[in-house]
């Protein structure tokens, strides 16, 4: 279905770059769940060899931001953003890539995908990875097989990445509902879109790191050597001993 309709419900993730500690647990649990889930398997080639490669739906990059103060390391998880204007769906020649009307999730039908890879070229975010073994494209399903799964406790009906995050940096909900917890979080924290200039209108939002708590240039934090003239007799003796 290369034509798509955007419905009122926009399920997606809100990722807090302030609290993400870069532990990769979300990526590992994503792999764990999805290698047996809707788009299973998520193959690995040469997993114990020198040239390891495999399909992952979620990857954690790390950036440094020069904020003119101490600088800041930001861990940056990235998965499919389930865009409102998904060019990956538009370019699909077979209709295998589609956007669900009822909740906005972007999925691939593995039975009709011809493996032309054009959708992965059309995605500016690198959300799609090709499965060489199955010959079809794979991508984040927003854990469509968890979030509606009545066999799971209600608390567990969230994507695997969200359920596993130890820093509570990932939130799941309906971003089409302005009163949902995730929408309020986005409004409160100034959540934003990645690459808005590309015009894909991503549903997933990112929360910016809060301003640093350490004021100043960072020099205050430097250790100052113990000055021998103000130190006690023992330290002066140690200093003399070590200065030899």
């Amino acid at each position: 279905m290369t034509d798509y309709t955007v419905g009122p419900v926009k399920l997606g993730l809100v990722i807090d770059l302030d609290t993400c500690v870069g532990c990769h647990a979300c990526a590992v649990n994503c792999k764990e769940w999805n290698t047996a889930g809707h788009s299973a398997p998520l193959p690995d080639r040469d997993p114990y060899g020198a040239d390891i490669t495999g399909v992952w739906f979620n990857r954690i990059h790390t950036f440094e931001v020069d904020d003119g103060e101490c600088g800041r390391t930001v861990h940056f998880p990235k998965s499919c953003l389930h865009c409102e204007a998904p060019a990956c769906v538009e370019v699909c020649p077979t209709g295998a890539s589609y956007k669900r009307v009822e909740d906005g999730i972007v999925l691939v039908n593995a039975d009709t995908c011809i493996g032309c890879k054009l959708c992965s070229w059309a995605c500016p975010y690198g959300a799609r990875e090709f499965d060489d073994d199955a010959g079809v494209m794979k991508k984040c399903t927003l854990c469509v097989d968890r979030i509606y799964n009545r066999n799971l406790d209600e608390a567990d009906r969230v994507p695997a990445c969200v359920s596993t995050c130890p820093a509570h940096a990932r939130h799941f909900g309906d971003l089409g509902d302005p009163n949902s917890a995730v929408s309020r979080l986005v409004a409160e924290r100034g959540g934003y879109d990645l690459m808005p200039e590309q015009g894909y209108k991503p549903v997933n939002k990112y929360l910016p790191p809060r301003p640093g708590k350490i004021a100043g240039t960072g020099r205050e934090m430097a250790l100052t050597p113990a000055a021998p003239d103000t130190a006690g007799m023992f330290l002066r003796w140690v200093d003399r001993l070590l200065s030899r």
Partner: protein
Amino acid sequence: MHPAFSVIFFTTASGAGYGLLALVGMLAPLRLIPADRSFAFTALALALGLITAGLLSSTAHLGHPERAWRAFSQWRTSWLSREGVLSLATYVPAAIFGIGWVLFGRLDGPIAVAGFVAAALSAATVCCTAMIYASLKPIQAWRSAWVVPGYAALALMTGALWLNALTHVWGAGQRWLGVLAAAAAILGLLVKEAYWRSIDTTAGPSTPESATGLGRRGKVTFLDGPHTEANYLLREMGYAVARKHSLKLRRIARVLGFAVPLLLTLLALALGGTIAVPASLLAAVAGMLGVLVERWLFFAEAKHTVTLYYGATTA
């Protein structure tokens, strides 16, 4: 972008095939090229052979070539689907034109109309191929306004070089066809130069700052990747060619693809006779090889925004 040989061969071969089919379909009914049936058979067999070899090659990079028929369904939004539909549709008037001309020696009435329709569909198919690339927003180089003119000009050039060579082989070489081939080579070079200048001087709108949204806090530098080995994204979209190599390959494309065909075509034009046959044939072969190099570069020089997440500072 990773240059997949099957796709490079496809656009080069089928581009030349559609160029030749368009010229033959237009010029034969107007009696501007030889009308005899052996010439008809050779010209159409070469054109349709190049087109078919290219189309078959294009399915080689698919994960599921046996499902290729599904690609005809989404022509409303997908340029790849449109290309598939038009490439197949072109066979219908081409077959009517070929049967009428080759088997019955007719070039009038409905056969002439079939020739013109085949020419129009050929041109449309080449433009659809170019639009597959030109419609991809994450690849700034391919957003260039010179992508569609480039594919059209090179299809016209290689088609004209083959038509010129075939008429010389049939001993029916005509000055104006040589002039057409030479002019097409000059046009092709001018369009490619414009494309190269545009990609050298135009930066994409996205940066590491916009890709992460962290630009409001300061300059963003890539610190650490998510994985230690290359993944699909880096192999497919992270392909990079060294600047010095790309300049050298552009020189090769200029010489092999445009200068050599132009000089050989002019040589055939000036000397005529027996020299014209090998000269015009060599011109066509050199033109094809040059276009192969140019197509390889078209991929290798194009940068994708996903590389911004892997340490690229521009895309």
